[in-house]
């Protein structure tokens, strides 16, 4: 099973996770920029975070044979803090970089006017840089938030095929399916979705335009949920090609629209940690 986790916050994960993910078949990930639990208080804090997403974290993932990409944005929660909003001015510098495959996570947290404004401005940036958009849907009042998200996307002029609306569930999938946007599902130990409910939705709605992710971060989460969903699909009668479509071909198709995927990770690969007399791959 080859797996592309289209939404996982590796900055919060250990090297044990990287090893386990690789063993389970994960060969590529997208790490969306998001909040970190502890609120940020300045633009500088964002800059260091973004730099790590295009630098250190990509290097760390490559050591475990995993191609690391990221999405860059001001997240909706911190869009409400005026000390953070100025980060919008530095986003363009990141949105031209290799391996930056979307603008995200954008969307709503509490559906404030500030969030409206920041969401709209970042959709404009996505249009300008011809990048896909990863939209987070709120934990609270999710159904209304999803509906409002779809309205804003429609008004923005960003093609629906360039947008994934994430963290969906049984109550929000239909509106997104009907909209033409891609549908993202986060499989969690307790909250959001679980593997079996995911399989039920795949049976009902099919495998087109569906992205399944672990969204693993600093909270209780499991970076192998993509793999477990693949196993659940097989147990429920889906074949290997269906699993490959959901867990590999779909994310490649969606994020491939950026023209920025770096899937040849073997080429930039790892350090020989042992003797040190081996070749340093990726060096010329």
């Amino acid at each position: 099973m080859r797996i592309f986790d289209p939404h996982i916050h590796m900055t919060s994960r250990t090297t044990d996770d990287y090893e386990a993910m690789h063993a389970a078949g994960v060969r590529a990930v997208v790490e969306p920029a998001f909040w970190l639990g502890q609120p940020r208080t300045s633009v500088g804090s964002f800059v260091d975070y973004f730099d790590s997403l295009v630098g250190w974290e990509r290097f760390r993932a490559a050591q475990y044979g995993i191609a690391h990409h990221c999405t860059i944005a001001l997240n909706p929660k911190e869009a409400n803090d005026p000390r953070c909003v100025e980060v919008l001015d530095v986003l363009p510098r990141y949105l031209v970089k290799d391996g930056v495959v979307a603008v995200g996570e954008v969307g709503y947290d509490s559906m404030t006017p500030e969030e409206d404004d920041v969401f709209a401005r970042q959709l404009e940036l996505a249009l300008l840089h011809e990048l896909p958009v990863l939209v987070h849907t709120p934990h609270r009042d999710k159904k209304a938030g999803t509906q409002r998200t779809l309205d804003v996307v429609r008004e923005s002029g960003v093609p629906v095929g360039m947008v994934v609306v994430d963290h969906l569930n049984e109550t929000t999938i239909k509106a997104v399916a009907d909209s033409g946007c891609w549908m993202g599902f986060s499989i969690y130990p307790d909250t959001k979705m679980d593997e079996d409910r995911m399989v039920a939705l795949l049976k009902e709605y099919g495998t087109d335009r569906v992205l399944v992710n672990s969204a693993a971060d600093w909270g209780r989460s499991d970076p192998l949920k993509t793999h477990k969903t693949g196993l659940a699909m097989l147990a429920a009668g889906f074949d290997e090609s269906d699993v490959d479509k959901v867990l590999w071909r779909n994310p490649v198709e969606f994020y491939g629209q950026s023209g920025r995927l770096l899937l040849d990770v073997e080429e930039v690969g790892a350090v020989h940690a042992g003797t040190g007399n081996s070749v340093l791959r990726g060096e010329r």
Partner: protein
Amino acid sequence: MTFHLGYGTNGFANHRLDDALAVIADLGYTAVALTLDLHHLDPFADDVAAQTKRVAARLSELGLRSVVETGARFLLDPYRKHHPTLVSESQEVRVDFLVRSLKIAADLGSDCVSFWSGIGTSWDRLKAGVSAVLDSEPPVPLGLEPEPGMLVERLEDALRLRSELGEPEALRITLDVGHCVAVEPVDAAACIRRAGDLLVNVQLDDMLPGVHEHLEFGEGHLDLPATLSALTDIGYTGVAAVELPRHSHAAPDVARRSFTALRTASWVAAAEREVRADPASLERLFAGAGRVDRAREDDLRVRLLEAYPGDLAGTLTTLYRHGSSAERRAVLRALGPVGARVPEVGVELVKDALRTNETGLVAAALGPFARDHLDQHSWRHGVLKCLFMGVPLDVVAGLAARTDEELLRMVAAFADEREAAGRAVPDDALALLRKAV
């Protein structure tokens, strides 16, 4: 790009002509240099007219512009390669072949018939032969190609012959840019500018100075972006086709690699122009270079920095501070060619890179710039860090020259520590210590 990138069918000698044309077009080329040969539109075949008509239709269907090449090896003489030539006693055989080629070129709608002089000394005979072809019908332009080892070996020889013949309109120049590297006193770009409007056909390949061996791009000394830039500068609109006649055994792969190299070089040529004209474009081009050609991204970025006409110190700092790992690595590599202009900034960036734990950055930091500018203490720690991180020491420029007693003491202590822990000591460390003994 004002001209048409093509591939020579003499590099597809083990393919049927129809298949070769299809592969060439499929890879993205928009032109072909068609070498008339035994199994590729044989000009001596009974049905050559019908064959030509069919090939013309095929070229048109595939959207391929063409030139006709006449360098087949055993078409005229089964024993002697390329024989007879325009400087041979039986010159008329060659003249007859060239006239047949003119007819085929006219029927194909090709830009020209390309030819070379031959190995020999008889300048007058050569002139007579060329005149005979020029006086023949139909009036298709002729491209005289300077060829290493032949009577017309360099561009100046070809221009002299043309001048002595009274500068006939139909006699033009074919230039093989690899030959320029091998035998011309100036580079290919300068030859292209010298040939100027007379250029009717271009052959693309790499070569080493003094060695007439057609190589894939990157294997010799040709500056491909500068060469393509020169073609744009003179307003060349004809065919520029890859000439790799000894690579037929792997033709599709070689043709694909060549196309990638050409596409990359075209990007570099255009990007260098843009950076020179509008220095502010650097940041965007620099960031996007990896998407153009991942295998060559460092080289691309270094070239952009070499072309950059603005404030180098500030720009290197900004690109490094705001860069992804790959962008930072390229800034560090660029310090080799440009760092001496801004040594203080260069040292700052090298020290920053040596503080990171990214192997690629540490390795790139210890290149020729560090050899020449980094203080001894920092340099030693850089070398030691390589050993710690498993970075092979061949990335360190000037290792032998700068190694001193203190470094050897540090490496020996490192080896002791590893041994005490029961861990392997890197071979590079042992080699360094051995040399010192």
